[in-house]
Structure formats: structure tokens, C-alpha cells
């Protein structure tokens, strides 16, 4: 038996090294996700500034709408691509007592925030696994043990970089290619010198095409997740309530907001998923009544939504848009009461 244990341990150590080497190689040669590197940078930044951070932003990529340089406070975006409210709850729990100066938490609420459970939708399940691997949480989301285990396995073995959705096709192609590797995530937008500054953005036509595609995709994935998770709206709402209570119990102010989307995105989303938007609005209304939580809805702000220059793509503000949006949010918070710049 001792012989077996020795050999088994050697084998496990060997396979871990092999996974790490091949996973690192695959990630360098042909990365499948751009957001992972950004996320790692954010977490490193959070760690470095933990004693000074006064505000954080949580949520999916829409929460990147806030520009802390405009707010004039030490803040850090912890936006996690495609994050759902269950992941935000876990993330919030992992921050407990780690940010002594934390006073404000911004949480982005998208139209589909209450109809999203990444574990129930195969193309997004890997995001959940990556979430567990990056976030220092030691408890799985309810009924999600398998992704939790995979995530923690990934953290030590790089297993998800070995188990690639393209079955390594991208890696072989890149390795066989003599020419320099092109940017795997090229941004094919334009730059315009506008009244808001030098703005990178999609053209009107590109924005419309993007809006149509992404709105449809978001509605469709939300419906599939809701089908796979009965009672999803209620469960997601409960998760958000627990997150709010966790922060409020420590005297931290929680601010919910919906950033501005490009007008066509709003139109296409409402066309296909008006019920999803209604669900979101009703849930938020109930939360406002029960928890006195602040909520700012800028989704259709008329000064932003019609200007292509302010959008990186149809559901994400560009650099210029983020500044303008944050100014407007700041104005609304000041008008509401006690926000000190």
C-alpha cells in the first residue's frame, strides 16, 4: 500500500506540473479569454491598496461604467465578466474584514441580473469555474459543488487552461504559424475627437449590429438559465438581499445602479425581453421598499444613450461615456443626500 501511495503522490505531482506547464503555454500562445488577465490585475491591485480603498464596484462588466477619477475617491472596480448575483454574493463574502476603509459599494444591475445563473448555462459555466479559481472563497454557491471543486482544482493545477473549449486547435494553429501572433481581441471601432474628448467607439452601424446581436444573446441566455433554474428571479433577489445586508450591517453604504446603454440596445432588448426588464424593475422596487437601498437607473439617459462616441459597444460605455456617466451618477447621489466627494 505504501508503494501505491508513494507512486500515486508522485503521479499527482507530475501531472500537476504538466498541467501547469501546458496550461501556461496554451494561455500565452492562444488565450481563450481576455478578461481573465484583467481580472487578475484587478485582484492584485485590490490587494496592494486594501488599506486605502473606500469604494468598490461589483457586478458584471456593466459595472465598469464608474470612473473613480471622477468620483475623486480611492476606489476599485471588481467587475467580473458576466458575473451573476450569486457570484457577487460569494465575492462580497470573501471581502469580509479585508477592506478596513470601505465606505461605499456600487453594484451594477443589468436588465438580466435577476435572470442569470451561470452554472445553468453551459457556455457560461466556465466563467463560474474561473470565478471560483480566482476569488478567495471557500464555500460553493448552493448546489454548485462540481464547479466549485473544478474552480479550486483550476487554481492549483491550471486544469481549465488544459481543458479548452477549442480542444487545443488554437494552440496548434498558433504554434504552426511563423508570423507574429495577431491580437486575439482586436477592437474594430474608431476614434473620434469629440466634445467629450478623444473617444474610442463603434460606428453607428457597428453599434446597431452589435446591439441586435448582444440583446438577442442576452435575452436568449437569460431565458435558458431561467428555464434551468425554477424560481431564479426570487433566488437571485435573495442573493442580492444577503449581499446588501452583509455590507449594511457593517455600516457600508450600498448603491445600486444601471448604467446607460446605447439606444438601439434598449430597443432590441425591450423587443425580445420586455418581461425580463419588468421583472428586474419590480424586484428592484421591492428592494427599495424593504431595504431603503439607493438605486439609480440611467439605462435610457437621454444625454448619453444617443451618442455613439460615448459607447465602447452597445452595452458598454467607452472611456468618454464612463466619465460623463459617473458625473451624472455623482450629481444624483449628491442630490439624494450625504455623498461626500
Amino acid at each position: 500500500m505504501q508503494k501505491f501511495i508513494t507512486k500515486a503522490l508522485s503521479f499527482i505531482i507530475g501531472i500537476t506540473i504538466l498541467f501547469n506547464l501546458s496550461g501556461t503555454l496554451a494561455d500565452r500562445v492562444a488565450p481563450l479569454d481576455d478578461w481573465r488577465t484583467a481580472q487578475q490585475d484587478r485582484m492584485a491591485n485590490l490587494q496592494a491598496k486594501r488599506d486605502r480603498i473606500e469604494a468598490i464596484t461589483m457586478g458584471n462588466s456593466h459595472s465598469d461604467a464608474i470612473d473613480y477619477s471622477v468620483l475623486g475617491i480611492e476606489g476599485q472596480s471588481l467587475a467580473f465578466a458576466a458575473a451573476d448575483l450569486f457570484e457577487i454574493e460569494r465575492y462580497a463574502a470573501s471581502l469580509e474584514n479585508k477592506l478596513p476603509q470601505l465606505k461605499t459599494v456600487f453594484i451594477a444591475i443589468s436588465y438580466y441580473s435577476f435572470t442569470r445563473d451561470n452554472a445553468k448555462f453551459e457556455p457560461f459555466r466556465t466563467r463560474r469555474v474561473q470565478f471560483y479559481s480566482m476569488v478567495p472563497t471557500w464555500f460553493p454557491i448552493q448546489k454548485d459543488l462540481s464547479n466549485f471543486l473544478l474552480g479550486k482544482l483550476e487554481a492549483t493545477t491550471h486544469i481549465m487552461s488544459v481543458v479548452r473549449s477549442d480542444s487545443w486547435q488554437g494552440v496548434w494553429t498558433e504554434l504552426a504559424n511563423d508570423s507574429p501572433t495577431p491580437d486575439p481581441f482586436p477592437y474594430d471601432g474608431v476614434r473620434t475627437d469629440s466634445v467629450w474628448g478623444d473617444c474610442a467607439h463603434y460606428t453607428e452601424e457597428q453599434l446597431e449590429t452589435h446591439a441586435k446581436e448582444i440583446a438577442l444573446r442576452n435575452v436568449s441566455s437569460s431565458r435558458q438559465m431561467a428555464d434551468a433554474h425554477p424560481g431564479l428571479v426570487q433566488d437571485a433577489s435573495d442573493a442580492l438581499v444577503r449581499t446588501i445586508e452583509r455590507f449594511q450591517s457593517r455600516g457600508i453604504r450600498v448603491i445600486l445602479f444601471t448604467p446607460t446603454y446605447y439606444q438601439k440596445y434598449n430597443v432590441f432588448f425591450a423587443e425580445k425581453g420586455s418581461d425580463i426588464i419588468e421583472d428586474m424593475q419590480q424586484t428592484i422596487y421591492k428592494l427599495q421598499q424593504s431595504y431603503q437601498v439607493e438605486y439609480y437607473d440611467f439605462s435610457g439617459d437621454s444625454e448619453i444613450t444617443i451618442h455613439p462616441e460615448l459607447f465602447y459597444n452597445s452595452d458598454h460605455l467607452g472611456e468618454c461615456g464612463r466619465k460623463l456617466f459617473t458625473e451624472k451618477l455623482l450629481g444624483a447621489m449628491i442630490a439624494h443626500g450625504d455623498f461626500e466627494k
Partner: protein
Amino acid sequence: MNEVKFNSIQFLVFFPVVTTLFFILPHRWRWILLLGASYLFYMSWKPEYIIVLLAMTAIGYLAGPRLAPDTHPAMRRLLLLFSLSVILGLLFFFKESDWSNRVLPTVLGQLGAPYFLSGIHLGLPLGISFFTLQTMSYIIDVYRGVARPEKHAGIYALFIAFFPHLTAGPIARTNLLLPQFYESHEPDYEKIVTGLQRMAWGFFKKLVIADRLALLVNMVYAKPTAYTGLVLILATYAFAFQIYCDFSGYADIAIGAARVMGFQLQENFQQPYYAQSIVDFWRRWHISLYTWLRDYIFYPITRALYRSRINSKSSLILIIPPMATMLASGLWHGTHWTFIIWGALHGLFMVISVAWSKHNGGLRKPFTLPGWMATGLKIFATFNLVCFAWIFFRANSLSDAVYIVGHLFVNSEIPSALFDIVPGGWYEWMIVLLALLLMEAVDWMREKNGSLRTLIRRQPVWLRWSVYYGLVMVIFMFGKFEANEFIYSRF
């Protein structure tokens, strides 16, 4: 609770934990651990269906001692009929859950009786077909005096629910598995290593081959009318290998997992696509089902026919037993026409095969083929007959199957976008072809009484470990990790 399937990450935790505890615990406590783990394994799917498993276990356990030869013969016969009827009734009730959900409330309502399952939508309990046959086998064996009734309720329950074979076999026979629970299994390096190797090979077949082939098969068979000719032929051949790799992959994992703990389960496959006739195919495919059907249906019918007034040379003796056996095999899979025709086709092929081999000797052969060519032709013909029958097995409806059969050779030109039919295109095809070649090479070695394991064992340690690492890397790099169901866990 998260479902513990063989191809889930939970199993990667569940199995080592159970195995470690199994070896740590003293022998007298082990059955409790294995039974608890097996029930947990089953309940991780849908906890409420444990009632069905428990009911089946109770029927077998309670009937056993009363069926032993020392009981009154008439009582025994009556009890045998009663217990088999209840077991088969339960199987039918759940297999035909659509019918049960629809008809039963109406019937009971008309009788003025309350429907005790109102509000509950019945589904098919995982592995019911397997533990039903195992319970029946136990009951019949005890009745015949071939096996002794098991007195220990826990051990008997474990015999039925032992987690490696619970959901998709191999169907364990009483005298092979039951005594093993009384044996003390100490950690055995050889068994642990060969068991793990077997499991890895099963994962390779399931994750790299079967789940990859499923992409093409599912797409074509979901809407066959969108395709003709070569695509339909390719999808059917792909299904032949998908179901083989899926089911034999499951068997490899089950047998390997049991072996790690020191148990021996019956082999379920023996290179079935190298069969030279349909009879030969059934000696190699789903062996535990075939031997069950042979022992409890084929032989009894044959014996009954010989005992009856039918002339022993009558063709009825040639036709009825194989047809009945294969129809029962089809019905065991489901009562849809597609399964019944699949079973009937195999029965028919068997009858023709036996008749051919009986009368072939009397025919004058115009020429003699070299042995290897004759063998190759027989393998080719048998494989294609099996594939033809698979069309009915896999098709979603009889009309789909009829369409596929009617359009196999219509418009047989190679579609220009053949490689793009499945996501990933030529790359996915290349992986699956290389993986199939590897699997076929291993099967070929076994067919020639060789063994890859023995060959590897003779190599220096660095080469052995390279092969092991290579296999693990191939599984992770090229496997499909969407935790797809094993095909036979649906039955």
C-alpha cells in the same frame, strides 16, 4: 445535491473518499459504508426515487427465503409468479411513465379510488432496468436452487445497489457478486493500478470519442429529414461507435472502480465489432444482458419447445427462441416501436445466421476465399447489419428511421461542407479518427489475445509513465467535459 455521475467532478472526489474509507474500515463495517455510499450515489440524482430501489430490494429480500427448495412447491411457484409480476409491473409502470401519468389517475378515478401519486410527475428511475433484471435473476436462481437465499438484509441490499454497476450494469449474477461482499478485500497494488488504468481507458472512450461523436449523431438524428446519403450513413456509423464507446466506457469505469476495491464484475464487452456473425456479436456485446436473456428466456423456451410435441427438427425451434429473446431485449430497452423493431431485426439476423451456418455445409462453393478475406468479409457484413439495426435503435421515431433507411443511398455525393457539419470542423474529425484508430488498435490486440497492458508493463518505467501521463493529458486536452449522460443510464 449535485449528481454524482462517473463523468462528473463529484465522482473524482466521491470515489477516492469511499475507496480510502473502505480500506481503512474493518471488514465488518465495510458493507455499511458501501451501502451508504451507493444510496448516496443514487440519491444524488433524484432522492425520491430511492423508494423504487428500496421497494425492489425489499421484494427480492422478502421473497428469497420463501422461494428456497425446502418450501411447499405450489407456494413457491405462486410466490415466484407473484414476485416476478410485481417486479415487472413496477418496471412497466415506470418505463411507461407517460402512460402511467395519463391513464392511471383516470382508471382509479373511475373506480372511485384516490390517485396516491397525484401532483407527482413520474419519470424513469435511474438504472431501473438493470436492478430489475438483477433482482429477477436472484429470485429465479433461488427458486431453481442455483443460489442460496441471502439472509443478511444489508449485504443483499448492497448486492442490488453496489454503486459501480447500479445505473448501467454490468448486470451482476448472484453467485458471482454476492459472495464477494463476505470476502475481506485488502488493498492490492496490482488490482488498484489495473483498476485505475481500466477507469482511465473508460474515460478516454466516453469523453474523447463518444461525446465527440455525439455532436454529429445528435445533430443528424434530431432532424434526419434535413440530410440524405453520405451524411446519414456517416451519422449511423458514428452512432455505432458512439454507443460502443459510451457503454463500454461506462463498463470499463464500473469494472475498474470495483476492481480498485478488490471486487470483480462481469465483463460486458469483448470487441463486438470484430464479430463474424450476429450470434457472435451477441456473445461480445452487452454480455451481461445477453447471458441473462439466454439463461432466463432463450434456454427455458428452447427446453419447453423440446419438451412439447414439436418435432425437434422443426424450424420453430430455430425461430422462436432467438426471436423471443431478441424481442425481449428490444422491449427491455423500451416499448417504442423503434426498440421492438431493433430487437426483431436482431432476432431475424440471428435466425438467418443460424440457418445459414446449418445449411451452408451442404452447398457447393464455387470458389474459396483466403481465410483472412473471408473473415474480413464476415466482420464487414456483421458490422453493417448491426449498424442497420442501430438506425431503429437511435431514431427518435419510426418515421425518422424509415426516412433514414430510405435515404441512405439517395444523393450520395460528398457534401462540400461535410467537415463543417459539426462545430470545430476538420479538427474535430481528425481527433475522433485518431482516437478511434487508437481504440481499434487496442481492440485488435485483444482480439489477437494480446494485451496493451502487458505490453506496457514490459517497458522501462520512464516509458510506462509517459504512456500514463499521455493518456491523462489526452483525456483532459481532447475530452468533452459537459457531463453528458451515459446512453444506457436512460434505460
